[in-house]
């Protein structure tokens, strides 16, 4: 495992390991077999594991998701690939009304070990339905776990943990970081639901996940030049949320800024700000601020850079937080 791997390769390795470790693990999705997926995350897996374990499905997201639920009811551990973020909407009912609730509704009689892999977010010059950040819909639904890795190590180990989990997991892959390389360690280091402080600091806490972790790390680096020491927390699990780690950080720094690509309006940042304010009120020097996308349809590629939060928008929020 040692050495530098892209996030894409790290995910591919995780799927390979999962297929090796458990004969009940099956992969299904559009163009994942022969082609190896449009982002090549399943590259070579059908060749090595056969087309009954790595299955090309028709374009029918609702049917694919329902089939995965049926397979799970009969003891399988399906991993579904949704080709692009916006393509998950046709499967919405099967995910929120069936997959999320089956275990609680049966009060534990059945398990739903289904992993739904979705490349999400923008930044690759695609358009709406190919660039969306829809994590709030899923995080809002009780019974689902929603996670997103930001680096190669987490991509590998979090995917393996997601597949091994008996819970349904929405696994959001930061598609514009697929080709970023990093070290993949020999063990996962953290449980799937834990957040991680990726850069310690003292003046303010930047909270991000998936593609925005890198932006926040760059912002913290730039702020260092101005003598500001920013802490960066990689949320990793969007539901449930590791509040103890966030609280501990905020109580030290007194300032928090949540950064995500999704629209700020009713996004994950709203819940984080509200709950952390409740829990850390007397430790805060400023309101918890949010940096994110605009409350508008995802724009055409030409203006994508205007829409997506960048280093300047993050640092601007840091200025505002420090000005209180």
């Amino acid at each position, binding site marked *: 495992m040692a050495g530098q791997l892209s996030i894409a390769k790290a995910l591919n390795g995780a799927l390979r390991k999962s297929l090796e470790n458990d004969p009940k693990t099956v992969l299904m999705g559009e163009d994942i077999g022969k082609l190896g997926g449009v982002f090549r995350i399943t590259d070579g897996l059908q060749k090595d594991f056969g087309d009954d374990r790595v299955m090309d499905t028709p374009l029918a997201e609702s*049917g694919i998701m329902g089939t*995965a639920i049926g397979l799970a009811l009969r003891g399988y551990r399906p991993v579904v690939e949704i080709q692009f973020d916006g393509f998950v909407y046709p499967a919405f009912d099967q995910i929120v009304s069936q997959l999320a609730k089956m275990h609680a509704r049966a009060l534990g*009689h059945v398990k739903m070990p289904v992993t739904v892999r979705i490349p999400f977010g923008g930044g690759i010059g695609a358009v709406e339905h190919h660039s969306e950040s829809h994590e709030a819909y899923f995080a809002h639904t009780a019974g689902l776990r929603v996670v997103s890795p930001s680096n190669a190590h987490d991509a590998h180990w979090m995917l393996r943990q997601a597949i091994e989990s008996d*819970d349904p997991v929405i696994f959001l892959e930061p598609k514009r970081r697929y080709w970023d390389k990093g070290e993949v360690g020999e063990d996962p280091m953290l449980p799937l*639901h834990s957040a991680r402080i990726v850069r310690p600091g003292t003046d303010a806490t930047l909270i991000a996940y998936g593609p925005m972790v890198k932006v926040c790390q760059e912002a913290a680096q730039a702020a260092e030049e101005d003598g500001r020491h920013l802490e960066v927390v990689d949320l990793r699990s969007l539901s449930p949320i590791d509040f103890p780690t966030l609280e501990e950080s905020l109580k030290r720094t007194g300032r928090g800024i949540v950064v995500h690509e999704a629209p700020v309006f009713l996004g994950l940042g709203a819940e984080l700000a509200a709950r952390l304010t409740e829990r850390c009120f007397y430790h805060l020097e400023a309101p918890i601020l949010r940096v994110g996308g605009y409350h508008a349809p995802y724009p055409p590629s030409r203006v994508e850079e205007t829409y997506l939060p960048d280093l300047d928008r993050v640092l601007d929020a840091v200025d505002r937080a420090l000005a209180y």
Partner: protein
Amino acid sequence: MSLPHLADPAGRYRAMRLIRSFEELALEWVRSGLIVGGTHPYIGQEAVAVGVCAALAPDDGLTSTHRGHGHVLAKGADPGRLLAELAGRVDGLNRGRGGSMHAADFSLGILGANGIVGAGAPIAVGAAWAAQRQGRPRVVASFFGDGALNQGVLLEALNLASIWRAPVLFVCENNGYATTLPAGAAVGGSACGRAEAFGIPAETVDGMDVEAVRAAAGRMVERARAGGGPGFLECLTYRFEAHHTMERRFRLAYRTAQEVAAWRARDPLASAAAALPSATVAAIDAEVGQLLLESAEFALASAEPDPLTAGDHLYASGLRPRSGAAL
């Protein structure tokens, strides 16, 4: 091997009698407030559930609908536990968490009723496909109504079952109305035409005749079990009662009294009884009456769930992110 309790005409009559009497009792419990929120009564459609389940083996599965009590009982679920489920008690099939529209008994292959029209169909395909992959020819019957014929997810499921030759029996209970909209005004083409378009053999039967349903379902189940792929059965039937118990209050008038009376004259329970010696029918009726008395006692004796358990079983992994007031 077919389900032993449905193996002969007397057993099938008994199952239909049980469903009818159970549903009548459930109506009473809705009126008296023991069942909160109402139900979708299955009265009038008993021959479909019983006829189809009579063609299934014990380890075959089914997915059911919002009008699902008949399917659940026909497959063999305990009426006391189903009644407790409807009344929201801890000894219910789903310990009171599923309610009328989500009753399930996975130990009997009852993979769940479903409140979303058509949503059970791809789940049935997945479960059937799983059995096929395991080399165990277990069939899954997927029940749905004429309303589901216009849901895209059903068409996706038909296609997937067809290309994978999954052993699914699609059972369309055409009772003539999707809530209040007549099927004639809602369904372009036909039920069987949809299946045939996907290369699935389809047949229409008299859904008021339990033996006709059983015979047709039996042919399709055996073919599916032998690897011949899915089948589609349209059962022409009628619900004698309202779409939902709330309908009484709203006094919806979308069916004429004559139409209801004409279908009631073809009561599937009465015709199944007529085929048996009257002493047999009387003995079964008495036995089922006693069983339901005991079922009611069982359900009433069961406790109501503790609201503080609302967050239990959120995650199979045992993860408990929040508890109590901060849920």
